[in-house]
């Protein structure tokens, strides 16, 4: 993950940007990672890896979210 999409995901996970997916699991994951980052701000990279893991596993579902988040 790189460029604007990475920047926007960091902003979403830090609460700077608001994005709600239509996918329940993705929202739960974002919520979980937001709390993780609040507790351990240095965990941003590992959180991004978790996001990437979800996206790789469910490209069909996450494709729309990626397009939307890139456009934020």
């Amino acid at each position, binding site marked *: 993950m790189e460029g604007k999409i990475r920047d926007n995901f960091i902003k979403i996970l830090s609460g700077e940007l608001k994005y709600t997916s239509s996918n*329940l*699991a993705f929202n739960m994951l974002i919520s979980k990672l937001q709390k993780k980052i609040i507790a351990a701000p240095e965990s941003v990279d590992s959180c991004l890896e978790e996001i990437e893991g979800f996206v790789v596993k469910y490209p*069909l579902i996450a494709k729309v979210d990626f397009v939307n988040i890139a456009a934020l």
Partner: protein
Amino acid sequence: MLVTLDEAIALIKSGKFLHIAGDEALLDRLPEGNWIGGTTAFFMASGGGVFTKEKLYVDEFDFAEEMKVAAYGKYNVFQLVEDCYENGLNVIIMPYGSEVVSKYSKEAPEVEELLLHPTIGWVSGLDLNGDGEAKAYDGTTGKSYTDKAVVMFLKLPEGKAAQINLINIFEDDKADPVITFPESSLSVESCLVDGQELNFADYIDKKGIDSGMPLVADYNGVYLNISIKGIENGRVDLYAPVIKNIEYRFAARVEDYEKEFLARVNAASSVRPVLCCNCIINYLNGNLEGKKIPPFLGPVTFGEVAYQLLNQTLVYCEIV
């Protein structure tokens, strides 16, 4: 679909992968086969919401390539994350009041990789007179459990994915104070209200909060409920646990439960669920007896699972 005992037996004998809900007396008479089941006597049927001990509710999982079933106790329930298919759907049934429900409900939100494995299901129950026992059935062995979760793992074809979603009529009132809890628990004494430690039962009493309204937590724009079971001797008992470090607020008042629930159902009526479970509180407070809520058909349940345990929610799964 609601079927007779004989029809259910014929479906089992055909070798189909099945999810079956019904009264204990009927489930006990089913033969071994590719099915899992749980007890309830309330259903959302094509003819409308219904209470019956004469029929069984059956879902056919004809979208799956393979299936396997496992039963888990409280010590190994999260083994399901290891045992499931890489691209699949996990359907879990847990008996009401069992320790495995308690364990699952408290720990699921923190289980690594659970969100990578679509997991939907329900808590089996009793009729409201308390007759019988809440059970989960493993049809592949013919065994039933009051203390174990039964999980059907379904393998999906390449290019297909399971997508779980929910319908919840509740949202929080952002003007209300934030409530947090020191521990994940199904029975709560103390809480922090905007950082101040208080007795939770006293707080509900003094604020005049309607305990019929659930606590809700905002999971990135999705609201998940925790319903109050009862308040006694300074303790508040819950149908699902509050989770440590999650911020809750009481749900904003819903003036007309039935109208709100049906409006949410109508708004989601274009979905094509392969499995659906609706909370008994929605059934009762939403006056769903006799009411049709297509395309949402399935058991009425005593707790719903969409990855984690939820309350007062309709959960469903689509294959996309």
